């Protein structure tokens, strides 16, 4: 333990005395403090607040990701190149402890800088504003729905041979994407019903029509004995205050034409949770956990590659991790025609699958929209990013470090 604390202390001193920590702090303070005067929102108070929360903290977080990744990647690689590491490695300190000590020091610096940015933000936004849980309708999982659709396809004699002979996984992936975006229709005077985990205080919905044009929406929302008339237009996302009395919600279409909606995307019930201050705290914890993952990745690369190569790989990984989910999402499977496309997509899908837990952990959007950063997801993300991933990456780094020792001494 003493050896581990020594490593943490050394790394903290390195970060502080190289002025890296100070520069980060100054940049974070300047950005967070100046943001409201630099950027104007859509003119509404709510819009300005949303923008402020999202991008003042988002900017600081992005800065920390880049700076700490670079610093962590360089830390071990530089010590190795400058041969200082040999003096550490002849001591009875484990290589895992060495790497984890460096992770902790970097995370501490990141956590402090981020805390200061959060403090500055907290001074100008209303901490008492309530945030809300966002409940989606209870539906079968996307995979289950894809499996069901697949069974229907196979049973259908008109299904083309190409679909029958395509790999099941590919077809299921295609169908899962369809399931997420699947539209349902509510005909005139028909009623659509959904079940939620609990009744809410508001309903958020977005209706469309077949022609993708604006059109009046007219209908009645019901939940238990509560009922309310809704009238607005299609295409727009509407947040409608409506206190439900049961976990059931229904919508009766009283308009003149049929309406369409995607059950997995277009209808949610909102339920008041705690205050913004708590939500900010949860978002902060998630961001610090993600920083730990990023730093651990940098240290792993620094343990097994030379400094310039490690830095290059670290940033390529960051970019791929950031972009692959949207590439995968936007790339239609129909284009998967030649081998190069297939290989490229397979790699991108792999990267997306690996980085999804992190890219999905974006608490700032929820925080800005006053949606609750759910404690359960915070616990999961902290466990994965702050505990499990750094431990695994440190173990891997420790296993790879001796292989590089012929270069280091």
């Amino acid at each position, binding site marked *: 333990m*003493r*050896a581990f*604390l*020594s*490593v943490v*202390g*050394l790394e903290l*001193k*390195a970060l502080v*005395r*190289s002025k890296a920590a100070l520069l980060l702090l100054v940049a974070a303070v300047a950005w967070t403090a100046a943001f409201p005067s630099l950027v104007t929102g859509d003119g509404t108070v709510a819009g300005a607040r949303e923008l402020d929360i999202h991008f003042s903290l988002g900017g600081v977080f992005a800065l920390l990701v880049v700076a700490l990744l670079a610093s962590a990647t360089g830390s071990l690689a530089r010590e190795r190149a*400058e*041969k*200082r590491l*040999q*003096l*550490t*490695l*002849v*001591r*009875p*300190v*484990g290589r895992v402890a060495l790497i984890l000590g460096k992770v902790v020091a970097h995370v501490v610096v990141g956590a402090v800088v981020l805390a200061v940015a959060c403090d500055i933000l907290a001074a100008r936004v209303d901490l008492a504003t309530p945030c809300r849980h966002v409940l989606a309708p209870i539906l079968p999982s996307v995979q289950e729905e894809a499996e069901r659709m697949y069974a229907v396809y196979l049973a259908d004699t008109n299904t083309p041979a190409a679909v029958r002979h395509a790999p099941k996984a590919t077809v299921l992936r295609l169908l899962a994407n369809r399931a997420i975006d699947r539209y349902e229709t509510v005909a005139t005077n028909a009623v659509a019903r959904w079940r939620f985990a609990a009744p809410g205080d508001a309903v958020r919905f977005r209706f469309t029509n077949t022609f993708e044009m604006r059109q009046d929406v007219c209908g009645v929302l019901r939940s238990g004995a509560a009922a309310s008339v809704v009238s607005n237009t299609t295409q727009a996302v509407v947040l409608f205050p409506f206190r439900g009395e049961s976990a059931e919600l229904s919508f009766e279409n009283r308009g003149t034409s049929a309406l369409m909606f995607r059950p997995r995307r277009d209808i949610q019930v909102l339920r008041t949770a705690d205050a913004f201050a708590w939500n900010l705290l949860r978002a902060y914890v998630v961001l610090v956990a993600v920083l730990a993952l990023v730093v651990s990745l940098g240290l792993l690369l620094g343990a097994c590659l030379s400094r310039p190569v490690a830095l290059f790989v670290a940033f390529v990984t960051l970019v791929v991790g950031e972009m692959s989910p949207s590439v995968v999402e936007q790339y239609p499977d129909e284009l998967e025609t030649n081998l190069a496309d297939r290989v490229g997509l397979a790699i991108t899908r792999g990267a997306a699958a690996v980085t999804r837990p992190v890219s999905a952990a974006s608490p700032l959007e929820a925080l800005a929209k006053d949606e609750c950063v759910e404690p359960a997801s915070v616990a999961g993300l902290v466990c994965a990013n702050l505990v499990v991933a750094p431990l695994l990456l440190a173990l891997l780094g420790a296993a790879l470090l*001796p292989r590089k*020792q*012929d270069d*280091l*001494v």
Partner: protein
Amino acid sequence: METLEHADPNYTKFPARRRALRPDFAIMCGMEKTKQTLGGAPHAAPNVIELTDVRKTFRDFWLRPTVKAVDGLSLSVRKGEVFGLLGPNGSGKSTTIKMILGLLSPSGGKISLFGRPPRAAEARRRLGYLPELSYLHPFLTAQETLGYYAGLSDLPRAEAKARTRELLAMVGLSDVAKRPVGGFSKGMARRVALAAALIGKPDLLVLDEPTSGLDPISTKEVKLLVKALRAGGMTILTTSHLLADAQEICDRVMILNHGACVAEGKVSELGTSLEDFFLAKVDDAKDFTLAPFLAG
């Protein structure tokens, strides 16, 4: 060493003629009570370091061999002795030391340190190492440097503090204890590194050219220190290019050339000066070719 004798035609054992040891080492270091052990390490003492047919070939990125740095080296260092590893530049002294410390993996052969593999934590707990160059963290003060290595050696905090103070006083750096070592002269940095090697109370001290960069007075002090530590029972493995000094402080020496042992034995049994003996053994080392340069 029998196997080597057969393997290497150049291999020599020192001529077996006793030479009186200077009797006053221990008294100079104020450790009279261990004086009687000075007549050479007892043969029954267990080996602290044991190398059997160790080889090291450096390879390039494509794993093609580039340098054969150590070639079938066997040696043993007994508990409580000062063992000198001598040889011309590039003869493989530092490489051997790094393999003993577990910093490099040997390409072949077997190494044991306190009867364990070199990377075992139990072995490293009993080890102090002074590398060829000092390799200090420039942003740490002298005091913090020792504190850091004390921490890595798991020394309790209070003990670490006291020992840091003692060692800084010993190497004559008490008055600059709070200055960053990045601003130290080469010799000052060397002293800090030497103190750092001693902070964990090692049983085995490995010194790679301990006096490089030190002035004559400091060099003399290092010699005194080595003698004092030996008198206190510490095992010391050292390399040096100062052969007179090596002769003075070492119980046994081994001379390496091109990664192989060319001579090994007790200094007390050496008839001539170590320097003459060394030059006779490795005069094929053509590091400098002065004639054309001087003629031109």
